[in-house]
């Protein structure tokens, strides 16, 4: 940082200004929202009237809020597992495809769900849900749909990790006598683990927050957390809502902090033993 500052001199002032303004634009509304949640009154107001955690107690004590939270948690977890498995398997499997043209097509197929408008995708899945009777009233289509939405992120992150590996690792392992299962389990997966984990993290955060698919695919009577928040915002604008969104944001921040923190701890403890690949490296680039 200091070297950049030194070489840029006062030219960096406008850059700094834009950066500060941009972060203010992102952070200030969030901070305002958070502050409205600790109001002692019963309306969303800024500045908040006094200080109390009553609305947090309200949310955490409410059976409906908590069941929505639980539902979001376990469906997102399942979707994440499916997305991570598919995305990582796709990225690793792609390296086995010899034909370049085939590689390009497969890569495109794995990334395309990002570009698909969620509403169109949701409508399509809704149709499937209606036509296949055994799916009606289950969470299968929601979980699978969420998994497919999140899979490209895992695929891209793991592919990035593969590009950073030495291409000679696999030939080296095979001349040392390892067949493909051993190469996969002992060489490729461990070497790619940081990328797989950060892919999973991203998948979870994206799925947990997703609401369009949830609107269409949730069975009657069930509401995921984001859907409940959406509905709550339409009914009454109570500080309960901002309290809930603060809690969800804290959860997301906590999750995103877990991996870098665990890496730092590992580095401090036994840095010489294992190389610590920065987990979110792929994301930053």
């Amino acid at each position: 940082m200091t070297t950049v500052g030194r070489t840029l001199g006062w030219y960096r002032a406008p850059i700094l200004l834009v950066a500060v303004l941009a972060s203010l634009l992102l952070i200030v509304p969030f901070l305002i929202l958070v502050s409205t949640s600790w109001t002692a009154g019963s309306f969303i107001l800024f500045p908040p009237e006094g200080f109390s955690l009553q609305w947090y107690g309200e949310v955490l004590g409410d059976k409906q809020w908590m069941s929505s939270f639980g539902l979001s948690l376990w469906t997102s977890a399942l979707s994440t597992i499916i997305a991570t498995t598919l995305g990582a398997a796709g990225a690793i499997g792609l390296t086995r495809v010899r034909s370049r043209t085939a590689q390009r097509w497969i890569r495109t197929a794995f990334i395309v769900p990002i570009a698909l408008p969620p509403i169109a995708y949701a409508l399509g899945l809704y149709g499937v849900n209606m036509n296949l009777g055994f799916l009606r009233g289950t969470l299968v289509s929601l979980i699978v749909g969420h998994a497919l939405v999140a899979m490209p992120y895992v695929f891209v992150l793991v592919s990035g990790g593969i590009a950073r590996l030495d291409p000679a690792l696999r030939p080296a392992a095979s001349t040392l006598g390892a067949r493909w299962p051993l190469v996969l389990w002992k060489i490729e997966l461990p070497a790619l683990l940081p990328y797989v984990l950060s892919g999973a993290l991203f998948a979870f955060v994206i799925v947990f927050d997703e609401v369009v698919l949830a609107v269409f695919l949730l069975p009657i009577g069930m509401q995921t957390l984001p859907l409940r928040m959406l509905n709550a915002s339409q009914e009454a604008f109570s500080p309960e809502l901002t309290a809930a969104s603060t809690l969800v944001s804290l959860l997301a921040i906590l999750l995103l902090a877990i991996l870098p923190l665990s890496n730092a701890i590992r580095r401090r403890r036994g840095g010489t033993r294992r190389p610590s690949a920065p987990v979110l490296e792929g994301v930053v680039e």
Partner: protein
Amino acid sequence: MTVALSISDVNVTLGHNHVLKGVSLDVQPGEFVTLLGASGSGKSTLLNVVAGLLAADSGHVLFDGVDVVRRPPQKRNVGVVFQSYALFPHMTIGENVSFPLLAARRPAKERRAVADEMLRLVQMPGMADRSPASLSGGQRQRVALARAIAANPGILLLDEPMAALDKQLREQMQVEITRIQRKVGITTLSVTHDQTEAMTMSDRVAIMRDGVLVQVASPEDLYRRPADEYVASFLGEANLFPTRDGRICDDAEGSEGTAVLRPEDLVVVPLSEATPAWSVDGVVRLLSFQGTRFRLELATDGGRKVICSLPTSIDASTLVVGSRVRVACAAPERVHVIAPPVVREPVLVAA
């Protein structure tokens, strides 16, 4: 364990490129042979064929007389040191070195013992618990070598082993690898484009050009008796002259072959004396002092460049730019004459 390697008539086509054109090579058990050639000559391709990482279109690879051309790399029992070393980044040094034993499902105790033994052999004792990321280039190479020979392979393959090292370390590792190779007594095939490296390390050097082995001989033979002009000028510096009746002639007309005169074999002789057999006159173009030798460049009447490497003990005052001098070969028995290439009619086979 050491194995005789025999490569016979191997052909490889990659895309539209005929990369290897009927290459045959025999390597004795315990011998160190280097494939030397410019980039794109097919030397790495040949190494990959021996390792089993690349399938040959035709031809055979024999280990102790057994054809292994259909065997996958896992079953060839070869050790390969890759250019990048390909150390597994998430494993410790010890786990890297003992990986071939893990692949062979040996117990942990034995793996640990072999890793320690191998690390002692490459002079890195007690480093088993470190990570590859914490090593220097030379240390990584030692680990790669230790891993390659840990499972006691029959053949060791080195793919540009020194490419990633700086010059000083390179010379040190050349000696080191040769020491280990001799100690283990393993048949070794190495690939390089560095002629010093090839000369230093090998029992024999195979010069490769455009997918063909041009000459396979000991380093001294290659230098003294190159098979053709390409080899002569590829290895060290060489003055090439057309010859007639055992003399140098300046014009190629009626030449009976090409004489190879190495710069260090030439001496300056007085113009007045009777002309010795292997001599040539020229005008001094450049004289430079290079520490241990003088380097003298002449231009003959026919416009050929002649390079002489002279000892610093000579009197250099007469070698002024523009003056006319005569140089002759001090050791006429060392002059090697390359026979002119026989023009071969392409063999036509009636289909």
